[in-house]
C-alpha cells in the first residue's frame, strides 16, 4: 500500500468510528452535530448512515487518486452546508499531499475536529490558512467567499474552487412511480437541500398533467419522510428565500402542499430551483436538454430515471454534472470531488 493510500485508509477508519453510534466518538458526534448542522437528529443520522462514504471500492479510490495532482502541501477551506463533505474534502487533500492543513467551517466545525481526533497527526486543523507558493488550496464555499479568496491569494498557489450549484432530477413520464418519487424525496430530505448536489428542480419529460401526477406522488412521499426525518431549523436568510420562492411558485405554478415543504408543478421554459426548505419545482417539457442548457454552468448533479437515448443526450449536454439514479444524487462514490463541473 502506498503512502497516499495509507493516509486515506486512516481517514476512512476515523470516519467509520464516527459513523458508528456505539463508539464514544460516534456518540459525541451526534450530540455536537445537532447544534451545528441545522439538521434534525434523524437528519444527522441519515447523513452519517447513508452519505458518509466509508467503504469505497478499489476503483473508487483509484479514481480519487487520479483526480488530484501531488502537492507538497494542500490546504482545505471547508464549507458548513453538508457536514460529511469534510470527509471527502480531506480525503482529496490526503490523496494529494502528505501535509494537509484544514480550516473547518465556523458554522459547522465539529465533523473535521472529530476526524482529527480520531486520526491524530493525519492532518492539521488551523483557524487561518496561510498557503504559500507551490501549495494547493481546495476551497469550498459560496461565490462571494471564493471570489474574495481568489482576489487575496498569494502568487503561485494553485486554487481548486468548489462553488455553489444545484441538482436536477430528470424523469421520463413512463418512469413516474411511487418508487421514483420516494427516491427523489430522499434526495431532497438529505441535508435539507443544503448540498451543492441537492435537487432544486425536477424535469418531467411529458406534459403538465404528467408533472402534476409525479408532483402528487412526490408531495405524498415528502410528507411521509417529513414525519420520519423532521426538517431542521432554517436560518432567517433561508426562510426568506423559501418564502419568496414559495409565493412565486404559488402564483406561477400549481402548488402542492408537502409539509413541511411544497412542490410546484407546471410548464415553463426555464428552471427556478427551490432554495431549500424541502421544496421542489417540477417542470414539464418535451425538450429537457433545452431547459437544462441555460443553467449548465450551475448544474452539479443529474438524478435520472430515463431511457438510454435520453441518458446519452443528457451526458453529452452536461458532461460536468454527476449522473446517478434517483435516490443517489447525494451519495456520490468517494472517487474525487463531488462537484465535477
Amino acid at each position, binding site marked *: 500500500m502506498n503512502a497516499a493510500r495509507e493516509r486515506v485508509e486512516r481517514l476512512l477508519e476515523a470516519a467509520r468510528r464516527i459513523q458508528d453510534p456505539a463508539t464514544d466518538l460516534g456518540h459525541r458526534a451526534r450530540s455536537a452535530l445537532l447544534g451545528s448542522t441545522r439538521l434534525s437528529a434523524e437528519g444527522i443520522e441519515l447523513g452519517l448512515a447513508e452519505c458518509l462514504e466509508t467503504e469505497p471500492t478499489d476503483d473508487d479510490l483509484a479514481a480519487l487518486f487520479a483526480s488530484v495532482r501531488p502537492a507538497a502541501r494542500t490546504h482545505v477551506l471547508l464549507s458548513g452546508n453538508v457536514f460529511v463533505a469534510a470527509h471527502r474534502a480531506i480525503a482529496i487533500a490526503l490523496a494529494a499531499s502528505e501535509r494537509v492543513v484544514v480550516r473547518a467551517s465556523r458554522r459547522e466545525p465539529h465533523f473535521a475536529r472529530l476526524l482529527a481526533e480520531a486520526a491524530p497527526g493525519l492532518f492539521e486543523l488551523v483557524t487561518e490558512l496561510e498557503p504559500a507558493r507551490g501549495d494547493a488550496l481546495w476551497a469550498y464555499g459560496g*461565490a462571494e467567499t471564493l471570489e474574495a479568496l481568489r482576489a487575496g491569494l498569494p502568487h503561485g498557489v494553485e486554487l481548486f474552487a468548489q462553488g455553489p450549484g444545484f441538482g436536477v432530477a430528470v424523469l421520463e413520464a413512463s418512469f413516474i412511480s411511487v418508487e421514483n418519487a420516494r427516491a427523489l424525496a430522499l434526495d431532497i430530505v438529505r441535508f435539507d437541500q443544503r448540498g451543492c448536489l441537492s435537487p432544486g428542480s425536477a424535469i418531467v419529460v411529458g406534459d403538465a398533467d404528467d408533472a402534476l401526477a409525479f408532483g402528487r406522488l412526490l408531495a405524498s412521499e415528502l410528507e411521509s419522510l417529513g414525519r420520519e426525518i423532521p426538517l431542521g431549523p432554517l436560518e*432567517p*436568510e433561508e*426562510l*426568506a*428565500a423559501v*418564502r*419568496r*420562492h*414559495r*409565493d*412565486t411558485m*404559488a*402564483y*406561477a*405554478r*400549481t*402548488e402542492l402542499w408537502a409539509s413541511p415543504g411544497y412542490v410546484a408543478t407546471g410548464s*415553463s421554459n*426555464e428552471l*427556478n430551483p427551490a432554495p431549500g426548505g424541502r421544496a421542489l419545482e417540477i417542470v414539464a417539457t418535451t425538450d429537457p436538454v433545452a431547459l437544462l442548457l*441555460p*443553467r449548465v*454552468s*450551475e448544474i452539479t448533479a443529474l438524478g435520472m430515471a430515463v431511457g438510454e437515448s435520453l441518458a446519452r443526450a443528457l451526458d453529452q449536454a452536461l458532461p460536468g454534472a454527476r449522473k446517478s439514479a434517483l435516490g443517489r444524487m447525494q451519495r456520490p462514490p468517494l472517487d474525487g470531488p463531488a462537484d465535477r463541473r
Partner: protein
Amino acid sequence: MTLVEASDALHARVRAFAEGKASDDFEALALAIARFQAEHSPRFAALVKSRNARLESVDAVPAVPTDAFRVTRVAVHPPERDRVRFMTSGTTRARAAHGVHPLRTTETYETVALIAGARALLAERGPRVVVSLAPVPDQPPSSSLGFMMELFQARWDGRALDGGPFVTRDTARFLVGPSGVDVAGLERAAGVARERDEPLLVLATAFALVGLVDALGERRLAAPPSTTVMVTGGFKGRSREVEKNTLRRDVALAFGIPESHVVAEYGMTELSSQLYEGTLPGADLRGEPDVLFEPPWLRVVPVDPGTLEPVADGAIGIARIVDLANVDSAVAVQTEDLVRRRDDGIELIGRRPGAIARGCSLALEALLQ
C-alpha cells in the same frame, strides 16, 4: 360587468384619487382592486388561497413577489390587450432574466407619473428643457423608465431643442449611446436652456451620471443655476459603485448647482408609480435627503423577509408596496429592497443579500460593456 369595464372603472377611480378629485379611501380602493385581481387572475387567486388570505384589509392582501414577473405573466387581461410591455433589466450572474409588466392602458400610469414627478421635480411653473441621460427608448416602449422620461419630455417641454415640433425618441434628448454619455449633447441642451432662460431638467440613471462625471473630469457644465437632476437606479453590486452622497456631490459640482437640486427617484418596472426625495427648494414635496416619499396612492411597508409581517417602526425590512395604479397586474408587490421608515417617508438601504441584481442602471451597463 366585463373585465375591461371593471378595469376601466377602477382606473378611473385611481386617477380621480390621484388627482384629488374623489373622496375615495386608499384602503377601500386597494381592496377593490385586489378583489378584482383575485376574480380575474387565477394565479393571484391561487396565491390568495395558498396564503389563506382574506381580502378584508390591505395588510392581508398577498404581495406578488417581483420574481413572479420574471417567471410568468402577471396580468388580469389577455396578451392581445397589452398596450405596452415593460421589461425589467435584471440579470443573474449567469444569464439574462427579464421580467415583464404588461399594461392594458397607460393612461393611469401617465397621470400618476406626471403628478408625482411634478411634486418633486418642478420648482416653478413654465416651460423647461428636459433631457435624459439614458438610451433612446425602444418602439414600442419596453422600458418603463424610458417611457416615463419621454412622457416628461413631451409634457414639460414639448418642443424640439431647435424650436421645432416635439419628436419622440429624439437622440438630441436621450443622451446615452453605445460610446457612453453624449457630453456634447448635454452641453448643447444646457446652452438652449440658458438661451431661453429656462430651467434644465436632466432625467438620469445613477450609472449614466457616474459616466458623465468620469467623462467631465475637472470640467464643469455651463448649466442654468435652476437646473434639476433626477437620479434613479443604483449600482446593485455591479461594475463601478459610487456611494450615493458622493454621487450627489459630484453631480452638483458637475452642473454647478446645489446638492438639493439632485433629486432621487425610486421606481421599478413592476410598479406603475414612483417615489421621490423632497429636496428641491420650491417644489411641493419637502423633506431631507435620502428620504423617499410615497405619493398618496402608494404605500410602502417594511416587512420581515421570512414572515412577511411588518417590522417595528424604524426597523429595516424588505419593501412591500401597495400601488393602486397597478390595476391590471398586482396591486401589492413584494420587492427585495431593504427599506426603513423615516420622517414620514422611507429610506432605501439596499438589496437583500443574495437577491438577484436588477434595476434600471443595468440596461446602460449592458449597453456600454
